């Protein structure tokens, strides 16, 4: 939307979507960030992209409230006592979610739903619990009109988890996105199989490597972490973030846009890339500085005042996108491409190593939880991307014939990303008859070092675009110019077309 007038008169936006767009336009009328000329250059070429976060950050991008703490102590600001039964709990959460901000103005993290609900199921029959939880889930889907909203399950099985998974298949909701934290030593096969079976009907839940992710914030020297053992949650598009904290910002380096300026591989690796990363880091620090020192967010938010979030548990997500295209441009040989040629993959790894070295040796402001470093994230892309593949994925249409080769390749690059890196697989519907087979593949992938995988069936209405879910039937309505409930349908619609996601290789017996 180019002007305020366009927003006000749009036929394709709901009232709520106009309101958010107008707030964004108002924010962008400010000019409070100090941005050097060279940084502006990289932003103009598209090499540095702040994902249109806005010109004056006044809330963190992703907020991960400690809902378990809130449920235990109640919320003074919202005049809510600690819930005592299932009805009170679900109402407590519905009210609290309404007041959790984010970059999209909707909560991107709803907590470990099964763990929140389970203690309140004593004495409640399965049928009764299922009815109440179903109404709760429908409420979330229809009022949090943003597909980036995410809830977590596992790694332990629970009655609440079984009920939620059973409902998901029936409800076919895009919100919330769900991830099962999976650990083969903790999660029973039958429970993981139900999760995968469900995902082959409704693209939900995704499955993450709990063994690897639980280490992400354990080692932090931040004193605030000690009490909770550095617990993590998954928000938005598979962002692995500290519970009770979150991400201040997510800016990304779009590697192919930078590679256009390169004279040679050496020029790219030794000069261009380090210079661009350094400008990007400075820019992110500038955003953090304004948010922490001037916006007064942490001084005014009841979430911070009541201890549901702590400023010290926030970090900056340093995004990377388009490694595949960048590598292919620098190789400049159509027979030697990313995901298919050892030399190309070695170059890609060298590029990632430069980025990882920058992250390890630079200073991020106010990022105690991550030892004052930037945290790398394989960014999934945005609607306007053309010819830029998510993070470090192999481009759609160029996937290796063997799913195992694909997963081994993924593992090689997932290791660089503490705050999230994921692959999406379209699977043949026959997998529904044998979810144990899909679990075998997950176990193998996680043993190799893959961190996060999601599946959907090639015939399912709900599809995973890059990280979030959209209904194909909603995409059709969007393509016809109709207003649709969830804002992610707009993003997904353009992404689905621009990235030709209908061509995603379907993994099947063969």
């Amino acid at each position, binding site marked *: 939307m180019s002007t305020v007038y366009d927003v006000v008169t749009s036929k394709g936006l709901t009232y709520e979507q106009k309101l958010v767009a107008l707030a964004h336009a108002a924010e962008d009328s400010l000019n409070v960030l100090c941005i050097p000329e060279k940084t502006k250059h990289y932003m103009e070429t598209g090499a540095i992209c702040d994902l249109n976060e806005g010109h004056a950050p006044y809330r963190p991008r992703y907020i991960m409230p400690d809902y378990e703490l809130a449920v235990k102590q109640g919320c003074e600001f919202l005049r809510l006592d600690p819930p005592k039964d299932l009805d009170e709990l679900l109402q407590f959460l519905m009210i609290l979610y309404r007041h959790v901000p984010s970059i999209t103005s909707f909560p991107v993290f709803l907590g470990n739903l099964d763990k929140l609900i389970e203690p309140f199921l004593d004495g409640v029959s399965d049928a009764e619990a299922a009815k109440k939880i179903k109404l709760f889930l429908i409420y979330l889907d229809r009022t949090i009109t943003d597909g980036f909203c995410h809830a977590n399950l596992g790694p332990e099985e629970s009655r609440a988890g079984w009920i939620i998974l059973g409902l998901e298949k029936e409800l076919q909701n895009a919100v919330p996105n769900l991830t099962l934290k999976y650990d083969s030593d903790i999660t029973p096969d039958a429970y993981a199989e139900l999760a995968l079976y469900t995902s082959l009907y409704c693209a939900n839940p995704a499955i993450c490597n709990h063994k690897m992710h639980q280490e992400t914030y354990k080692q932090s020297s931040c004193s605030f972490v000690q009490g909770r053992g550095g617990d993590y949650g998954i928000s938005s598009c598979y962002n692995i973030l500290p519970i009770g904290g979150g991400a201040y910002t997510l800016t990304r380096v779009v590697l192919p846009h930078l590679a256009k300026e390169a004279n040679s591989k050496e020029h790219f690796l030794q000069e261009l890339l380090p210079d661009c990363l350094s400008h990007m880091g400075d820019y992110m620090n500038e955003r953090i500085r304004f948010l922490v020192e001037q916006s007064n967010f942490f001084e005014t938010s009841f979430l911070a005042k009541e201890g549901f979030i702590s400023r010290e548990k926030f970090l900056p997500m340093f995004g990377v996108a388009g490694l595949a295209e960048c590598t292919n441009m620098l190789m400049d040989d159509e027979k030697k491409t990313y995901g298919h040629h050892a030399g190309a993959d070695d170059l890609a790894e060298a590029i990632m190593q430069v980025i990882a070295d920058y992250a390890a040796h630079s200073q991020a402001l106010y990022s105690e939880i991550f030892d004052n470093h930037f945290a790398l994230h394989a960014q999934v892309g945005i609607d306007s991307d053309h010819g830029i593949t998510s993070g470090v994925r192999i481009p759609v249409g160029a996937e290796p014939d*063997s*799913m*195992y080769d694909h*997963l081994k390749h993924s593992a090689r690059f997932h290791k660089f990303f503490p705050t999230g890196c994921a692959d999406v697989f379209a699977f*043949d519907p*026959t*997998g529904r*008859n*044998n979810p*144990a*087979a*899909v*679990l*075998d*593949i997950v*176990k*193998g*992938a996680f*043993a*190799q070092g893959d961190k996060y995988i999601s599946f959907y069936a090639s015939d399912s209405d709900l599809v995973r675009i890059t990280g979030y879910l959209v209904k194909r039937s909603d995409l059709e309505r969007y393509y016809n110019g109709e207003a649709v409930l969830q804002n992610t349908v707009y993003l997904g619609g353009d992404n689905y077309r621009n990235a030709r996601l209908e061509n995603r290789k379907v*993994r*099947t*017996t*063969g």
Partner: protein
Amino acid sequence: MKAPVNKIISLSVVDGPGNRTVVFLQGCNISCAYCHNPETQRLCTGCGICATKCPVQALTLEDDKTVWDRQKCVQCDACIQNCPHFSSPKVRDMEVEEVFTEIMKNVPFIRGITVSGGECTLYPEFLTELFCMVNKEGLSCFIDTNGCIELERYAELMRNCDKVMLDVKAWEPEVFRDLTGGENSPVKKNLIYLAEQQKLEEVRMVCMENVVDVETIIQGIAATIPGYLADFTLKLIAFRNFGVVGKFAETRSPSKEQMEQWKELSVQNGIMHTRIV
């Protein structure tokens, strides 16, 4: 030791529990009228007819042997469709070690292998050697068989075989003979032997009205191994004419209702795990 390999599928969700690699061996000892992959039935005679039909010249005749160029091949299957001998020029004679190497590329994503065919039990020594190697890697080994060879005769093979998926294609000998050209007394012996050995994973039958004695098979199984009916899955496979050549090429599938009735009969006979596929 070598055996003719039709193909190896690295990822299968339909050949036993979990994710498995499937090895298809070439050659069969019966010829079912409804065979869905007739190109696996016989060994190549080297007649060269397929080479003349290949649109990309991926097949050549050298010393009376058909040679397949994997790089040139576009997998159009014109060779298979034109083969008058129910064979395929793409079959490769492979050493046990070669097959083992192919399987190991799929670790850790698979929990085991299934060897199918054609009829894989035509190569018991090959299977024994392969299973010994694969078992050592912690992978399970399954046989998929038409049951026409008595497995009890191959003690070492069966020691290394975890489970068997057995076809019971017909119960009355004359029905079996009409359908397959073979004898089914070994099938019944195998049914008993495998049940007693706790090696029966699955029993399958392709269901066709007026051709296959479906009710008799169900009752026959129930009466033959009454103590083991909860130990295996009975898969009732609805006949489909896809890929079928010959007299059943146009035959229709049984109705859903008919399949449900057979399933009901099976459950009533005590076969607890019965599935329609």
